[in-house]
């Protein structure tokens, strides 16, 4: 079963010293974009078997509000704790990743929760923080 260590290994694989920092970052974000674009075509088995691989596509596309609800979800990522996240607006997803997130939920809820949990655990990874675009809050966007 994939863990956040698996995800971290994938991330670190892009920063192995064979490229400059910026080249690595461009390659990493390019791969993230490719994965994100391909999520809507992934089937239920793949989502369940390779969650870290899928989670790459959502890195930098999610915002998390720190707190007990998030911690509970990470410990036990299921639909009940996801409902708590929703109720308390703990997670925001970027519009560009919304179709991918919708596909995850529609295809395999359990896998969607696992993938979201992996992304939550990787949220403080320096490379993930660097991926995040300038965000516009919902209130500003409307």
């Amino acid at each position, binding site marked *: 079963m994939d863990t956040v260590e698996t995800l971290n290994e994938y991330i670190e694989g892009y920063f192995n010293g064979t490229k400059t920092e910026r080249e690595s970052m461009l390659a990493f974000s390019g791969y993230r974009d490719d994965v994100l674009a391909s999520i809507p075509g992934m089937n239920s088995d793949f989502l369940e078997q390779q969650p870290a691989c899928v989670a790459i596509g959502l890195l930098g596309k999610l915002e998390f509000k720190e707190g007990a609800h998030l911690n509970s979800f990470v410990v036990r990522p299921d639909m009940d704790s996801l409902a708590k996240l929703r109720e308390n607006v703990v997670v925001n997803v970027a519009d560009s990743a919304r179709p991918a*997130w919708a596909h995850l939920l529609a295809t395999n809820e359990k896998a969607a929760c696992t993938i*979201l949990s992996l992304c939550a655990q990787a949220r403080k990874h320096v490379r993930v923080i660097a991926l995040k675009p300038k965000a516009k*809050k919902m209130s500003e966007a409307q």
Partner: protein
Amino acid sequence: MNILTVREALKAGSPQSAERQLAKIANDHGDDTLALLVADLTPGEVASFLEEGDYSKPSEVTQFLTTEQFMEALTRFGAKWGKINKNDGRELLLRLKEDVATFILPTLLHREDHLFIKAMLDNTLGEDIIVALPLYETGYLDFLREFDSGMAQKGTWQELYAVIQEMDPKIFKSLRKHVYELSDHQADEDEEQDEDADRKTEGVKFLRRTLQRLSDQASKHAEASSGVEETEDVFRGI
């Protein structure tokens, strides 16, 4: 077919397709038409073509570029490198140097008028790039010490140095002296040197500085030309 079609192919990220179109233009309408079209290319477009070519098949634009176009294209090279860290080792620097060599050598060596070589030698950064080319290549010191232009490997820094020697022996000697001064021949002989020493040698420092200058220059151009702001992603609840 006109420059717009070529431009569209480049914009679509297909320099191969643009190159094919140029070849067709040359074939159907002759070199004069191609020369007119090349004259209209922007430095960024020229850079895309030069990146696509190699020594065995240089870009169609090579013969028609002006010196200014070539030098401007060179200033666009390395935009993706960003900051080259002090921790970046020799291996990485050599890879970047190889990228530069692949970019410039086909054009420098296929132009029989040697105008671009002269232009690079007249430019501080251009000259430093030429000095950097042999650094840490296999047997570079021995080759320079017993320089024999007849032994120069085609398409490499050796051929470039052979051309320069023929163009102006004085400049050749000065370049060779500079390369000697930067070489780590003493350190090379000491097999016990630690990893850090690899990053501190004069040659490595020179290489890093030169590549960084190229990268900085290219970044400035990239910033100036990217008038379009990155699309903002709006975040909303799941």
